[in-house]
């Protein structure tokens, strides 16, 4: 059956029988009724990947992030170390990628959506985030145990999923080029559907110990229909 047939069928049904056309398929297939998001909530469920690799984050106008002088020196040192030895990258030790770097890993991400939370399952080293859509970020996030992936809280702002995160450790990099951050990092992710199969995303980085001002970068995710997440396992010692 060609891709167009369902559309034609739908158009015919609408023309012949408005009642039939109104009997839409059950929303949120597979999801128990009590967990279904409110009608009209954008559907991000599925497996997604970036269409092209982004190794160094840039601002929206394509410029380098506004590093403070000390952080610029750290960044230069990271770049130099990485060139000399790829194992200087924290993820070479199988440490977690951190946020937002996890999104930029060259692996797909599965998104499973519920009324009260959103689950991100990244193929890379089977790393997941479970983000509440009902509970705020802990007020003392910076005083809690610092985490690789931080503490996160999400909400829908119109049709945009907004996730705020804080409480990170300072051991991860923000991207694959070695961009550093401090434990004062705050990250805002925004996910917005552009058509059914594309997410236009933004990440805003706020870290007064690393950058002179908050800055924003953009990303795109496209659906990978039918893709099954593989078991990806990081091993320091052995090739799996």
């Amino acid at each position, binding site marked *: 059956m060609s891709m167009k047939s369902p559309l034609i069928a739908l158009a015919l049904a609408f023309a012949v029988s408005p009642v039939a056309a109104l009997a839409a398929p059950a929303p949120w*297939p*597979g*999801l*128990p*009724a*009590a*967990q279904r998001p409110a009608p009209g909530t954008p559907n991000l*469920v*599925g497996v997604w990947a970036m269409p092209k690799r982004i190794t160094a984050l840039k601002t929206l106008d394509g410029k380098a992030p506004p590093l403070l002088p000390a952080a610029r020196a750290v960044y230069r040192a990271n770049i130099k170390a990485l060139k000399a030895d790829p194992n200087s990258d924290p993820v070479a*030790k*199988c*440490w*977690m990628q951190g946020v937002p770097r996890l999104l930029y890993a060259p692996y797909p991400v*599965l998104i*499973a*959506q*519920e009324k009260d*939370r959103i*689950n991100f*399952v990244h193929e890379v080293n*089977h*790393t*997941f*985030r*479970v*983000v*509440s859509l009902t509970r705020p970020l*802990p007020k003392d996030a910076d005083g*809690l*145990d610092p*985490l*690789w*992936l931080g*503490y*996160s809280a999400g909400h829908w702002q119109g049709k945009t999923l907004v996730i705020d995160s804080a409480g990170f450790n300072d051991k991860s990099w923000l991207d694959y080029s070695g961009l550093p951050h401090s434990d004062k990092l705050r990250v805002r992710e925004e996910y917005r559907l552009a058509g059914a199969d594309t997410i236009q995303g933004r990440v805003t980085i706020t870290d007064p110990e690393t950058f002179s001002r908050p800055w924003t970068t953009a990303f795109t995710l496209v659906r990978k229909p039918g893709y*099954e*997440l*593989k*078991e990806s*396992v*990081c*091993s*320091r*010692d*052995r090739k799996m």
Partner: protein
Amino acid sequence: MQRSPKTMRAGAWIAALTLMGLAGAAAAQDLSILERMQAEDKAPPKSFEPTPPPSDPRDFTGVWEVSRFAKTQGDTASTPEPEFTAMGLAEVKRLADSEAGGRVVADAGTQCFPHGMPRLTFSPYPIRFTYMPGKIVMLHEVNHNVRIVHMDRSAPPPGTPLTFLGYTVGHWEGNTLVTVTDHMNDQTRIEANVPRGPKLKVTERWTKAKNILGTTDLAVTVTAEDVDFLAKPWVRRLYFAYRSDVERDIPSEGLVEYSCEENNRNAPGADHIVTAK
């Protein structure tokens, strides 16, 4: 492994079991954990919240954790020991002898790899279920293990590789989620001290069940079949308590970030052997 409130609690639990004589008092060395556990016992229970799980019998969302106590009639105390074949017993003996000689043969989880099946299901850490078209996803706190139950397949696709957690297909029988897992690699075990051969197949039957306290558990019957290592299938029944308190009190919806790789203080060498450090 990063020490978090949750891992600490699991440690306290292990210490408690140790003191109860299950493994001998000699192993109870970590007094700070013991003291912590005693302080927890004295403190008023602050987070018990008997919120019932979703009423839909097929809705397993929420946080579940293997119940510490036998709350359900015909419970885990009666779990039989596995019966090995000669080949299985030889491997048990090899592992035991190596350990007695100070060279512990590490299994997958000790190396920060996915725990394998059904070892993962037996792990005393919280889990979450989430649903999407054709799949049910199980998220485990322990070493961020992820299992994907393929509800849209009746068998693994051709060419499926051998992996730590294998390939899992599932279907509903009434309100029981039945999962079948195979295609596991040779680095996993059935349980910490139960080795396995290459033909291991694991069937799990997950269903909600009322316990004798009147609350609802998630009960699972795990059947491990291994014609090479087990003389007959090993069947274990476990009960997962619904932990709305954990979901409420612990950030990240009840699953604490678990970074095994960050500080694996007793990591095995490339030969899979752990020696005391």
